[in-house]
């Protein structure tokens, strides 16, 4: 092996065909309203944790639905469980339960 002075850059294009949908499927079985999200961002806008950390709850659960599970654990830890997200969701997604379900998924699947 030769070191030419540079390294290969990781391909950041998300390949859906290689995603891990187990987390999504487990969460959906516990909280089916996850499918109702329209990506409006009301939850992230009102989120208490988002004012001081980079938790983006809208992005987090969208990313899980794609099968991209790299950022869940770090994100979830920041949630205060205050319930503001659930209060404002226009589609009626049960976000508090969704977060609990996500925790359960992490426990079970690692």
């Amino acid at each position, binding site marked *: 092996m030769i070191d030419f002075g540079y390294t290969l850059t990781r391909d950041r294009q*998300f390949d*859906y*065909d290689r995603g891990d949908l187990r987390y999504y499927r487990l969460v959906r079985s516990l909280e*089916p309203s996850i499918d*109702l999200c329209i*990506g409006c961002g009301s939850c992230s806008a009102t989120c208490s944790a988002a004012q001081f950390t980079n938790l983006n709850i809208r992005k987090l659960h969208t990313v899980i639905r*794609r099968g991209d599970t790299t950022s869940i654990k770090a994100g979830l830890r920041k949630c205060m469980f205050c319930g503001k997200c659930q209060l404002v969701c226009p589609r009626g997604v049960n976000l508090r339960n969704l977060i609990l379900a996500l925790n359960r998924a992490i426990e079970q699947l690692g």
Partner: protein
Amino acid sequence: MEHSVIVIGGGVSGMTAAGMLAQQGFNVTLLEKEAETGGHAARWDRLFPDRKKASEVLDFIRKGMSRVKVITGITVVNITRNDKEFTVVTRGQVADGGSQMADIPHPASCILLATGYELFEARKKEEYGYGIYNNVITSAELEDKFRSGSPILTSEGKPPARIGIVHCVGSRDEKVGNLYCSKVCCVTGVKQAIELKEMYPASEVFNFYMDLRMFDRHFEELYYEAQQKWGVSFIRGRLSECAENPDGSIIVKTEDTLTGKPLKMTVDLLVLLTGFVPGRGMASISAMLGLTTGADGFTNSADSHTLNNSTEIPGIFLAGAVKGPVSISESIADARAAAIQIEVYLNSDKPGND
């Protein structure tokens, strides 16, 4: 002299207006360039939002047309005006005359232009590979398949396990010269997503959209149903390109704008929601009559709020998609409005009404 009306265009709006005017006692002739009336609606399987059969709507409209004189298989080659009367010259094959064509003049006191629209030619979006990759079809072709009743298969003869539906093909697109929104494709995409899930409950269906235009009553509920009951996935991101795998499946690239990352996935079948474009035949008719078109190429009415079925030319009326993208229910309402205004116009012209 009895007033006569000529309706050019035998689609939903033309037939609706013709039938209503004939029932009111006017002498109505309907001219249609194809061999049969029905327009684009004759090609659809089920209509949004309630999924009734398109044929039901056409049957209803046709029932009201018993007094209309219908001439099919002709093109309009000239329209001239002489004071308050018009003459429409049609060209068509002579009956039992082989390939011989004949020009026939039709006199009229007024003309209703219900010439409709055409579908955007999907192959103009070269990057989507329509006409090149076998498993890329249009939404109209999907309706053909639904109507045929046979199961929908990929070009390799298998049921698709994953289907992609692409919104905004040929609309809202500067590259193909159509800046406008075709309005009804979004709800069509949601409807077809549900229909595909009904046919193949185990399949995955993805709608790739920029915005979701659920503009009319029950449309938003249809979107809700697609997500909640059927598990259709909606990815907000416009497809940039397609490529073909060795097994014939299609690789699509989009940005998942809601997560901010470029995304690629393989689908077995890709459906392109092609939009409305102005009908080619209207260019010559507009020129003959001196009508104006908007920047989008559709024909202008005298006023979009208050005189939406009239034109600047007394006696020339408009109904339906000739004015721009419109749904079938709106087209029917518009045609009935045009019929009433034509009736008012013709009655105001009766001798003794000064």
